Every structure is written in C-alpha cells, then in structure tokens.
C-alpha cells in the first residue's frame, strides 16, 4: 500500500486524454518512419512497463534519447522498440511518475518499473468541485473528501452509515438498523436552519439517493462546505452539497475484480426488560406505594417464578422470543474495467443481501424475517469520438426487494415495549396466538412477527446519464470547450401486502372436566390472508449545458465556466393534482478562477436560480461568492523545505435554500376538496368538505445563507503530514417558517398558516483534518488520519409569542435545544415534600417522586420552571480517527468515530412504569434495578406508580443523558497475496480480509445505542463481523 494514490488523484492522471493523444501522434509516425534511414546493426527490444504495484501501465512514453525513435505502451503495458546499439539510453516518462533513464544494453527483453512522483502527483491532484474538477493546489473553497477505500472498509448497504467522522464537516446520526431503512441522517457542518436541513446530494452531477448506491461503485466522495464551493448551486446550496462520482474506465486491458464479503450481524443493545416475577412484584409495589392492597399473593409470584402454570401465569421473554442473536449480510461485486484510446468502460454488478433479526416461524410458507436484497448494475462508458469530442454514457440500475413481516418494525418494537412478560403466554395450549382483551394493546409480539403474513417492497431505480464534451481549442480559441449533460432517473416503488389476520384467543383455564376453556367470543377470529398492492413512482429530468475555458498565459492560469441547468421532477403517482405537477428549478452558474504562478489564487462563483416555490417576480435569485488563496510555500522567499505546502484561503458569499418540507407554491392560496367533511341525512352520507388548505404569502422568497470561511492547508515533507483547518461562520436570514404568533382565536388551522421569511440563525464552528502517512525505507507503511467537526447553530430570530418568562424563549439557544424541568433528585420523606415549593403536576406527591427546581422562585413548580436543558439530539461535535499500517502484504486498520455535545432522553412508557395503567407496558431492567424504594433511597429513578405519574413522567433532566460516545466503528485485517502460481489462472492478485463494524462503543447510556432517537430504542443497530476476498484478474 505504499503511497497509493487516492482515487481522486488517480483519476487525474488517467484522465488527461489529450496527453495520450499527443504522445500517440508524435510516437506513431516517428516509429513508422524512423527505421528507414539507418544502416547500423539494430534489434527489437520487447519491453513492459509496470507501476509500483506491478500492474502494467498503458500509454507510457519510451523515447530513445537523442533520436526520434520512441514508443507508447499498449493495454498490457508492452512496447517494442528498435534499438541501434548498446549505448542507447531509454527515457521512460509518464505523468505523475518519476521519469527514468536506463540503458538496455544488449537485452532483447526488459521490464521497467516506474515509481510515482509524489510531488508531481500532489501538484496534479484534483478534487471534484461543483460542476467540474479543480487542481487541489488551486482550490480556495472549503471542500473535504475521503479516501474511498476508508468508506469501503465499512461493510454496509447504506453509504450514509459509513460517513461519520470520515471527513471534516460531515455530521451524521444513524438511529435504526432495519434493513432498507437504516440510512443515517446526514448534515454538513451541522445545520443553519430549522426547517429543511438536508444537504444537496449529487451522484455524477445529478440529484440522487445516497443510500442505494453500492460503495464499491464509488470513485470519489466529497463535500462542499462554504459559499465559494456551493454558490454555483444557488438556491439549493445553503445546506451544503455532497458530491459523489462513480467509477469510470481507464486505459488498459480488461481488469476483472470480484469482491465478496459476508458478515455475521449481531444486534447491538437489544432492550433488556424485567421478567414476570419482577413485573408482578413491581405491580404489588406500586399498589403498596399508594396505600393499597397488593394484587398478587406469594403463591401467585411463585407460580410466575417456577413456570408451573405457563398459560395462566406466563413469564415471557418477548425479546428473545421474536429476535435472534445473529443474522447474515452479504455484499458481492463483480466489475470489469478497462479501455482503449477510443472507448473506456467500467461495469459493475453488485448483489447485496441484508437479513433482519426476526426469528423465522418454520411452519410458515412465507418468509417472515425482514430482508433487503439489492442488485446494483452500473455501466459507465466514455467514448473518444475524436481527439476533440468525447461522449459518455452512464447507466445505473438498482433493483431492491424488501421483505418484511406483516407488521412494521416500529409496530413490532413498540409491541415489545407494550407487552409485559405476564400479559399472556406466547401461544395458547391449542397453538393459537394468545392475547388479552385490551383496547390498544392487542399486540402479541410473536403474533405480529410470525403469524401476521408478510409484505414485499420493490424499489427500482433507473439512472441514465448522457454527456458530451467538445474541445473547441482548435476551432475558436485554445482552452475553450463545451459540455452537455442530460439525465433521466426513474424510481418505482411497489408494495404487496399479504396480511394475515391470525386468530387471537384468550385461555382462561380448565373447566371441571379438565377441558381447556377460552374466552368467548375469540378476541379475533382467523381471517383469510389479505392481498393488497400499492405503488409510488417518480421521475426526474435534468439538463445541463456548460462552456468551459481553461488556459495558461505564462504564469497566469485562467479558467472560466458558464453553465445552464434545469430540473423537472414529477411525482407520477401523487395523490393530488397539486402534487402531481412537476417540481421545477432552473438556473445559471458561473465560475472564474485566476491563479498567478500558483501563488495567488482568486475565484468568483455565482448561481442565478429560479424556484417555482416563489411568486412571479421573486423567483430568481442571485447568489455570489468570492474567495482567494495565497500559497505561501510557492513564494520565492519560502525556504523552509520541510513545509512543502502552505496555503491560506478565505471565502465569502451567499447561497440560498428554497426547501420547506414538501409544501409547494407557497404564494398560492388553496382550498382543498375532500377536506373536513360531515355526514348528512338519515343514512349519513358523507358530503365532501371544502376548506382552506394553504394560505399564500405573496412576499415569500428563499432563505439566504451568508457564509464566511477561513482555511489553512499545510503539508510537511512532501505530504507526509497534511493539515487542513477551517473556521466558518454562517448567518441564515429569511428562514422560511410558519408564523408562530397567530392565536388560535383567529381560527386558522395550524397547517394553513403561511410560511414567511421570518427566521434567522447563526451557525459557526471549525473543522479540521490531520493526516500523517509515511513508508519507511524498510517498506513499513503507516497512516493516521483524524478529523474533527464542531458546529453550533443558534436560533437568532423566530416568529414566536412573548414568553411570560424570557428564559423559555428558544431564541438565543441552539436549534433543537430541548427544554424541561431541572431535577433536584428524589423526595425522601413527607417533610421534604412539605418544605419544598409545591409541585403542581399532581395533587399528592410522595416520597420517591422527582423533586424539581423552582427556577423562577415563585414557590410553585409548574410549566414555567422549564428551562433549556442539555444539548440538541444531533451532536455538535463529531470526530474520527483512522489508523492504518501495512507491511509486505499485511494491512491493519482501525477507525474510531465519536460524538460529543449531544443529549438523549431515555423516556417513554418502558421507563415510566404503568404510565398507561397498572399492568401495562414492559419495564426496562435499568429502571427496575435502580428505582426508588424506601430501602433504596439513593436510587436513580423515581418510585413506581399505579398509573401515569404526571409529576415524574415529564421532560426533565432526570431522564436526560449525555449522548457522547466513542465507537470503534470499523477495524480490518487484510492480506494481499502475491502468488505467482495463481497468475497462470489469470489471477493477478488476491486480497483476503476480515473486518468488523460497530465493534466497541464507549458511552454513558449503556441501555440503548447512543445514536438512538429519544425513548428506549427501536430496531437496533448491528455489529457485523465480515469476511471477504477481492480477486483481481
């Protein structure tokens, strides 16, 4: 792995096709005509050029020094050359590699190995920017990328789960592990607004889903963070931009790579509930706490304990009844890549299966476990029609099939929270599903998983991209080119529900004759398996046309770009005529860069966009940005050789956001047909109601983010140490929000109140990257890459009422700041209650109830004592550290991610015992083991109550937890085999690896995953241990 190029840089020196063409044009004729006019003894030298990894290099120029004779290597890296004497010296050169001179002497065959020129590579390294690429050295905006191989080490079907901590500026949180629904929320530098916060995600330049991509298909992954980088996206750029490119072909003979990886998945932190004896005992304790008689006798408790009467005194561990320890995931990819001067191609087919953790009922003819199966097809072809004209065609097909039980994962995990171990047994003596006569809780978890039938979901995506680039250097002026892009994406989602209404019966014991008795009528009689289908579908057209200019005049390097684009997205199966209308956007983007001698860099970007969301005359907005950089290390006075690169850069500009959570045509007033209705007549026929659905605001326009960024890039010892630090500040104005000051008396439905540009927020922070990499002379390679992101968003202005107590106003606090009461601990005795401010949530506060702080000092505890507590759920700090070492063929790596300044409430019915009535809902063991009793006065949690305890069961610091964590996100051991014997079978190389994801977590919450949503957890995240091999042919 010595000094292997990042994929981004690799694409750079494979890309400059003009270099190859140039070489060809010079080399071919000279070779053809060179042999004629010489009569010395000569022979043919057969050679092959390999790169540092031993792979053949195509397009390498071999020149006989001092002559016109020369050759270029073919697809297999081979060349032939006429040699006219043993003194002749060959000059072997290739962009990005050290030029080598050598004398073949009398040899007739030669193998030449080129070593990479790190300095050259660094200078030519490019990064993907908005609507193009730029040399990394000349970038002045804030852009981060990640070596794709780091992402690929995390074996996940959803790319967003591999991003946390991988690059500075990205903030993610994954809250569910359900197959097909396990994607993480992704934000760039936190968020600057509280309505729509999602970044714009572009795959090959087109808005596409991040999570159904196959990580093996990715060539580069970068994020655009500041106004300089995102201004070209104008009204869509304010929340940051994620740019993903897929792999493309490169010159060379076909290279076949087969990669297979197979993982054993283990659910992380399944909820741990108490058992039946504990549960029954706790019900007794609740009654006794309130001065009532216990419900269960010692004999009853004994029956729960010994299982002597499992039907009438059940004691069910529901979690282990329906969930299994381990499940399986496999990801397989077969790719072929290669190319000639005319055609380069990349094709890949991927096959992914992710299984769920539900136990399969053997008697079912259907599969009741959750499963996500996905086929990814991708083909990217670049055709060089002439030396001036290339066209490229990209096709992606993603066929995803999901299988789920008849009930949804939220329903099932909710049933685990709801169903107590003693509610009813799993099944009755007759094998039917057991249930109880309860209005809201007829939810036997086993019935829901195993007997409820199944649902299949098909999600098919077609992504077609057609582009062309025409170099006009020869026709108009040097460095001018035009480019066009058209894409068509289609998404189809169909679902097929086979829901089985299984019988639910309640066993009530045996009669005198010893026959089993059931409550009559049955709670539910068995029904036929239902059948229903549904579908949703959408499509998007995207068109882009650009003029590019790129030229150097001595030390002056100038580039320019003007680009037009428009998008038309239609929800084909929308339920209303309004939503069926296409969603449209159109705009122009432009960029000018100027670079003097690679020292002084200037750049201006702008976007001019229109959004249909706004009224005529207010549709188009102009979003400019400027940036500048100073590469100090390129100054003549710079003599500190150790610092091989030092750049300061800064940017300032504006970008917009026109998204407001799905509402459209904000300026229009609309009356809905079929709104709130009423039945008239003796037969009560519903008469469709017409009512206000939206009230337009004629003045509505986009949010504007004004962003400033100051950055420093530094490299020591030719890239052995890389440091990138960015500080940023963003002011978001005109945040589109619903007015919050309209009283209910005015009679508006809450949802019709118009949006207006009334909010403001400020977001600031720093992000940084530090990378150390080196290969010792002994061939030992090591790399440490650390990233850090801190972003804090503050609500500056909102349309909110006057708060009776200003400290309850969310303005001035972080966006998403939670508010709640401040717990002072638990009351220990009546005296303490009587001498404390009166708590008004409940008439009779008892020892063991939570004691709150009287924040406003008015002598009573009420809702006015709620204050800002804790941090928002999305972490304000995310960091990551990747460690890799390699020696000979062995590679070891470990990747840690962490988050800080985040809070989580572990609340909900499983932590609030008997909130829904005595004997309802499951109870978390953590509560049980740490609850207050007179014998356990120093408890963490309050006493148990017989029903909802409005004093304890409310948002307060008592249930607030620090959600900081550090996770060993992934680790890998890999071995690269160099077995000559295998080459006979065409196997160039073989890499075997074993890696793991979510291996260890250090946090303060323990009972659920620290990335979970509020509450006590849903479908758990998975730990996976993954074995795989990569075969290169």
């Amino acid at each position, binding site marked *: 792995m010595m000094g292997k190029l990042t994929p981004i840089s690799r694409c750079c020196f494979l890309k400059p096709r003009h270099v190859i063409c140039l070489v060809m044009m010079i080399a071919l004729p000279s070779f053809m005509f060179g042999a004629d006019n010489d009569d010395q003894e000569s022979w043919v030298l057969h050679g092959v050029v390999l790169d540092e990894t031993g792979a053949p290099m195509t397009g390498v120029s071999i020149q006989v020094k001092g002559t016109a004779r020369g050759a270029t290597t073919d697809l297999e890296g081979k060349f032939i050359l006429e040699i006219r004497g043993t003194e002749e010296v060959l000059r072997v050169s290739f962009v990005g590699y050290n030029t080598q001179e050598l004398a073949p002497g009398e040899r007739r065959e030669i193998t030449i190995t080129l070593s990479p020129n790190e300095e050259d590579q660094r200078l030519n390294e490019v990064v993907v920017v908005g609507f193009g690429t730029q040399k990394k050295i000349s970038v002045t905006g804030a852009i981060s990328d990640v070596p794709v191989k780091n992402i690929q080490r995390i074996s996940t079907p959803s790319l967003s789960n591999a991003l946390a901590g991988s690059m500075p500026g990205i903030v993610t949180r994954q809250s569910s592990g359900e197959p097909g629904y396990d994607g993480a929320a992704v934000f760039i530098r936190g968020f600057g607004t509280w309505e729509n916060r999602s970044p714009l995600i572009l795959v090959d330049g087109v808005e596409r889903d991040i999570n159904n991509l196959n990580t093996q298909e990715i060539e580069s992954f970068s994020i655009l963070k500041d106004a300089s980088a995102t201004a070209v996206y104008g009204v869509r750029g304010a929340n940051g931009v994620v740019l993903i490119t897929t792999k493309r072909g490169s010159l060379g003979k076909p290279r076949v790579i087969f990669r297979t990886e197979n993982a054993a998945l283990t659910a992380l932190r399944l909820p741990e509930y108490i058992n039946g004896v504990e549960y029954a005992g706790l019900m007794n304790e609740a009654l006794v706490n309130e001065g009532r008689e216990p419900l269960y006798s010692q004999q009853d408790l004994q029956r729960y304990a010994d299982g002597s009467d499992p039907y009438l005194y059940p004691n069910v561990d529901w979690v282990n009844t329906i969930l299994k320890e381990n499940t399986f995931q496999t990801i397989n990819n077969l790719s072929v890549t290669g190319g000639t001067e005319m055609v380069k191609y990349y094709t890949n087919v991927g096959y992914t299966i992710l299984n769920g953790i539900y136990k399969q009922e053997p008697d079912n003819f259907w599969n009741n476990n959750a499963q996500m199966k996905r086929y990814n097809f991708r083909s990217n072809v670049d055709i060089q029609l002439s030396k001036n004209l290339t066209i490229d065609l990209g096709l992606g097909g993603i066929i995803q099939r999901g299988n789920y039980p008849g009930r949804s994962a939220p329903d099932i995990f909710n049933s685990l929270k709801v169903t107590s171990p003693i509610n009813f047994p799993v099944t009755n003596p007759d094998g039917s599903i057991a249930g109880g006569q309860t209005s809201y809780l007829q939810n036997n978890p086993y019935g829901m998983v195993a007997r409820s039938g199944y649902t299949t979901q098909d999600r098919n995506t077609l992504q077609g991209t057609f582009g062309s680039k025409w170099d006009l250097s020869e026709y108009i002026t040097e460095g001018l080119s035009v480019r066009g892009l058209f894409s068509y994406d289609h998404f189809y989602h169909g679902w097929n529900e086979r829901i089985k209404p299984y019988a639910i019966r309640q066993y009530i014991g045996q009669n005198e004759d010893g026959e089993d008795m059931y409550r009559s*009528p049955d709670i539910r009689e068995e029904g036929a398996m239902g059948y229903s289908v549904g579908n949703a579908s959408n499509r998007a057209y995207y068109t882009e046309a650009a003029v590019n200019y790129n030229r150097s005049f001595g030390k002056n390097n100038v580039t320019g770009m003007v680009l037009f684009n428009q998008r038309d997205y239609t929800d084909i199966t929308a339920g209303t*005529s309004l939503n069926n209308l296409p969603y449209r956007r159109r705009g122009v983007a432009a960029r000018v860069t100027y670079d003097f001698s690679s020292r002084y860099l200037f750049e201006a970007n702008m976007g001019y966009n229109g959004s249909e969301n706004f009224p005529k005359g207010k549709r188009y907005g102009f979003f400019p940005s400027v940036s500048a950089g100073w590469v100090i290390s390129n100054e003549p006075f710079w003599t500190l050789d150790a610092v091989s690169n030092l750049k300061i850069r800064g940017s300032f500009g504006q970008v917009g956001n026109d998204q407001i959570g799905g509402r459209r045509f904000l300026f229009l007033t609309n009356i809905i047909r079929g709104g709130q209705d009423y039945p008239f007549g003796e037969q009560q026929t519903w008469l469709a109601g017409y009512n206000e659905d939206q009230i337009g605001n004629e003045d509505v326009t986009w949010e504007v983010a004004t962003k400033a960024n100051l950055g420093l890039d530094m490299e020591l010892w030719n890239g052995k140490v890389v440091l990138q630090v960015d500080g940023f500040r963003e002011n978001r104005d005109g945040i589109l929000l619903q007015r919050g000051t309209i009283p209910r008396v005015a009679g508006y439905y809450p949802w019709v109140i118009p949006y207006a540009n009334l909010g403001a927020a400020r977001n600031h922070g720093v992000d940084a990257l530090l990378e150390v990499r080196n290969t010792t002379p002994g061939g030992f390679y090591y790399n440490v890459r650390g990233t850090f992101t801190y972003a804090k968003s503050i609500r500056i202005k909102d349309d909110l009422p006057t708060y009776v107590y200003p400290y309850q106003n969310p303005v001035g606090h972080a966006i998403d700041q939670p508010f709640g009461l401040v717990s002072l601990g638990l009351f220990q005795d009546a005296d303490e209650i009587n001498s404390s401010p009166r708590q008004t949530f409940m008439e009779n506060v008892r020892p063991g109830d939570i004691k709150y702080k009287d924040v406003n000092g008015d002598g009573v505890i009420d809702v006015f004592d709620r204050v800002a507590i804790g941090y928002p759920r999305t972490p304000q700090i995310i960091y990551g550290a990747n460690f890799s070492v390699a020696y000979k063929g062995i590679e070891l790596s470990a990747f840690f991610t962490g988050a800080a300044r985040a809070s989580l409430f572990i609340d909900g019915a499983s932590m609030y015992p008997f*909130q829904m009535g005595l004997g309802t809902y499951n109870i978390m063991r953590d509560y049980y083991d740490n609850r207050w009793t007179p014998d356990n006065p120093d408890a963490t949690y309050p006493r148990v109550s017989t029903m909802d305890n409005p004093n304890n069961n409310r948002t307060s610091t008592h249930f607030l937890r620090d959600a900081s964590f550090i996770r060993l996100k992934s680790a890998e051991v890999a071995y690269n085999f160099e077995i000559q014997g295998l080459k006979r079978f065409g196997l160039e190389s073989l890499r075997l690896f074993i890696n793991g994801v979510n291996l260890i977590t250090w946090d303060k919450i323990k009972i659920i995953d620290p990335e979970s949503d509020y509450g006590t957890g849903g479908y758990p995240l998975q730990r996976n241990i993954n074995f795989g091999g990569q075969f290169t042919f």
Partner: protein
Amino acid sequence: MKTENMINRLVAVPGVLLCLLLAGIVSSCSKDFLEKQPDENLDIQQIFSERQFAEGFLSSVYHNLPPMLDVSRWEQRNPFTGGSDEMEITWTGAYSHLLNSGAWSPADYYPDLWGFMYEGIRKTNIFIENVDGVPMDEAEKRHWKGEATFLRAFYHFQLVKMYGAIPLVDRTINLADDMSVIRRQPVDEVVEFIVSECDKAADMLNWTVPAIQHGRITRPAALALKSQALLYMASPLFNGNPDYSGLVDDGGRRLFPEYDPSWWQRAAEAAKACIDGAEQHGYGLYYAADNDPVRSYQELFIVRNNKEVLLARNNGVHSHFERCANPTGFGGFSIYCPTQELVDAYEMANGEQPILGYNADGSPILNPASGYRETGYVEEAHPKGYYPEGIHNMYADRDPRFYASISYNGSMWKGRPIQFWFTGIDGRQRAGSDYCITGYLMRKMVNPTSNIPQNQFGLNTWVTFRLGEQYLNYAEALNEAAGPVADVYHYINAIRARAGMPALPTNLNQEQMRERIQRERRIELAFEAHRYFDVRRWKIASGIDNKEIHGMDIQAGTHLQDDAFYNRTPIEKRVFVSPKHYLWPIQVGEIEKNPMLLQNPGW
C-alpha cells in the same frame, strides 16, 4: 495528417449536432418553465361562485360540531362525561383523569375545544360573508345562511360553557389584522350575541328538514340553543358570581356581570318558546310503540332523529364508542364505567330516594321508607322483564331509567347476564388493562344490536338538543323566576311520566323544587354531557367533584350472588379546587401570543 483532420471534421459534425441538441432542449423550454400553476387551484372567490363548492364548504363548517361520542380517545372533544361524578373511564389515557386528579394545567390542552371551535367560527364567518354571491336558489341559500349563523353561535356557546367570557369573533380575522387587540368579551355580551344570532338564525331556518337532510340545523335547534345560553347566563356561576367580580380587563370591563334576576325570566320564556314552537310542528317526547318506560327511554337515543330530537350530530359508524361501552365478554373494552354515586342517585320506582346521604366513612344512609335493601338477592324477575331473578337487591325496583342507562352485575345484555365479578366472563381477572373498574357500564346510547366480534355496527348520532332537556330548562328557569308554579310541575312530571315514575309531591317550596329539578336533570340527562356543567353553573361542584368516588369490588366475587363483590370500594379521590376548577384555563400559548387575554381565576 489529412485523414485525421477529415476524421476530426466528420466527427465534429455529430458533435455539433449533439451540442445543438442539448442547447435545443434548453431553449425549447419556454420562458414560463417555472410558471406552471395548479390548474385545479381553488380560492375563496371560486368557492363561492358555485353552489356545489359552497355546499362543500358548509360541510366542513359542520365538521366542527364536537364529536361528543369521543369520551375517551386522545383526540376526544368530550372530557366532560368522565370528568363528572357520572363516570370513571378505566383507560388511563383519557383526559378526564387529568381533570379528576387536578393535574391539568394551562400548558396541556388535548381536547383543544378552544382551537377547534374557533376554527369552526372562522369557517362560519367566511361562509356568512361570502354566501350572498353564490348563484343558487335563494330560499336554499337563506337556509344555509341560517345554518351557518346558528353554528357560529353554537361554537361560541361551547366555549362559554367552559371559559365563561371569551373573545367574540363575528368576522373573519385576516393575517394582517392586529391580533393584539383581541379581548375576552364579558360573558353577558357574548350571551346576548348568541341570543340575537339564534333569533336571526331561527328566522331563516325551517322547522323540519326531509330525512335526506337529517343532521342539518333546523329552527327548534336555534330556539334550544337560545334557551340553553340564557339558562347558563342566569345561573349562579355567571350571574353575579362574587368570585369573578374582580376579573376586569385593561379596558375596565367586568367579564362577569352583577346579578340580574331578569336572566331567569328570559331563560324561561326562551325555553317555553322552544317547547311550544317545536310541539306545534310535530316534535314531542318520544315514546316507544308500547309506551314502556324503559324501552321509551332507551330508544330515545338509539332511534335516530326521533320526534324528540331537536339537533343530533351525525357520527357515522362509531365502533370505538360501542367497543368502549361494551363488556369485555362481548368483545368490548368495558371502560365507560358509571360510578356508585350515580347508581345511588336513581330513585326507587315508588319515587323515594334509596339513599339520603353518606356517613363520614363513606357508607350510605339508607332511606327506610324507600324499600331499598343492600343485602340479599332478588327472588323473582321483574314482571316487565326489567331485570332477571337472582340479581342483588340493590338493583331491584329502581327508576326504569336505571335499567335503560346502567349495566350492572347480572343485568341482561344481548341475551345473557353480564358477569362483572372477578372471575366472571366480563370480570377483572383476565381483562388486561381494559376492564370494568366500577362494576357498572354505561348502557344508555349503546346500541344493543351491534356485534363487536363480527364487526357489525349501526350508525351513531349524538343527541345535542332534545325536547326533554327543554322541559327541564323551562322548569328550572321558571322555578327561579316565579317559584314552583303549575308549569314547573307540569313539565317535570311529563318527564317523569314518560319514565314511568310517579309525579312530584305537591306543595314543594322553591328550594325543594330546585333540589328536585337538579336530581331530575342528573338522572334524565345522565351521560349527555350536562352534569359536568350543571354542577358548575349551580356552583355546587366543590361539594360534589371533590369527593371519593366508588364502585363495586371488582377484585372479588366468584359468582353472581357472591357478597364479596357487592362492597362499596373507593375508586379514586377526586380533586376540585374552588374557584379554580369552575372554569377552564386559557392555554398558555394563547396568553403568550396575546398577554392581554385575561386568565381565569386560580389558574
């Protein structure tokens, strides 16, 4: 070299075409690419340019008639039945639990009638302000306008009952309007508005509508609302209540006025006008075909739009209501549980009160003259089949309305006796979180023909106004205005006669009559969402809603005649703080948006 140039040029041609194509796509997109607007977009002007659209708008105005059958759900609009001494709802999620434990606050407002009613009021205002322009039959338009006028007044009155003085919104409030000037209007002014609107609406409305229109507002509904509004205004809670004399807004207006006895007179006149008018147009007390008192009273709430109904809210099929009210053994949830206190309030068939009061320990003071016994079991079934043999003596020989209103242990329901004892089919033992907590279930309004396991339900209505209530309103107002004159006896006795109960003893004084009327309302109007408000407007709630409520011992009993079950068992100690809990709190959010909106005393 030449050939290469040739090739270049040849290839350049498609290249140019390609770029032209792309440019073509771009330029072909017309200038109004972003202009596309919804073609089916309707605004207010369009709505009121077509009869059909306007009718749809009026349908959405009706939508805000509170769905009072939602007694327990989160989205409930009726926390009043469970919040009175009539009922305990087992499901702990019902908002009535917050009312009963005193744990409600201005910060939670799940029933949100405030918002729901003002949404309705906004729609009526839009409708009334725009309907004149609709091209349609003028007579029909006039009737629609009358309906909307009534609904606007009705929506205001629902809030008057809860809050007393409220902002009066008689025109649409636009977003540009200054909403900080909104104030709570004095309660008498709001009532005067409601009264005059009812007069206006009555003028525009027909006495009856054809069956296909059932559910639409008719003239007697407007008259009934007027009578109810005046009765509330005349009552001690609003009329000269010293507790509220200090509630004065920033303009110096008292929100609750000085005592004025003429309100009673006006209330009596309005009720009489409603009764007379309705009876002249075919309305009357409902009697079953055989005049049987139990059947008459039961069918009154099942036979939709019978002659006694002045206004009913159509609810479509409301299976949830039926489930909540049915015993678990019938597939129900058993959660609408009447209290022992209500059971005790039913007179004996002979007109005597079985229980005169309670001792300090909660035990009842039995009335020996009544014949009521709290021991033993009935040996013979009721001759008319009101109850089977073997039931507890507590339930024997009671007011026939008891048998139509309450399901008790051993009472017949859908063909079998109900078994509320612990091990019974409908008992607590295996009932999970939903169970009958008092040993009684609400029977009134529950459809005996619905079949829960087979998912068979009928259409439900909620009787908002009925003539029987007007009889009681008239009697009460008249007794207050003029004492127990003949008409007072006449109308109370008419109600009792329909129920199969003996007439009131003659020679009651005004006070005795007042107490009789209050008892009669409690029984006759049970579960109709009157009790919660009646005890408040009479200002007697602090003596009623601050007590322990009771039921039978559902944790005991192995058979029908197991004495262990028939023990009065405390269910809940209810909390009522005076004067705080007489009126609802204005939500914190509303006061924050408009700090000049005065909060009710105690909150």
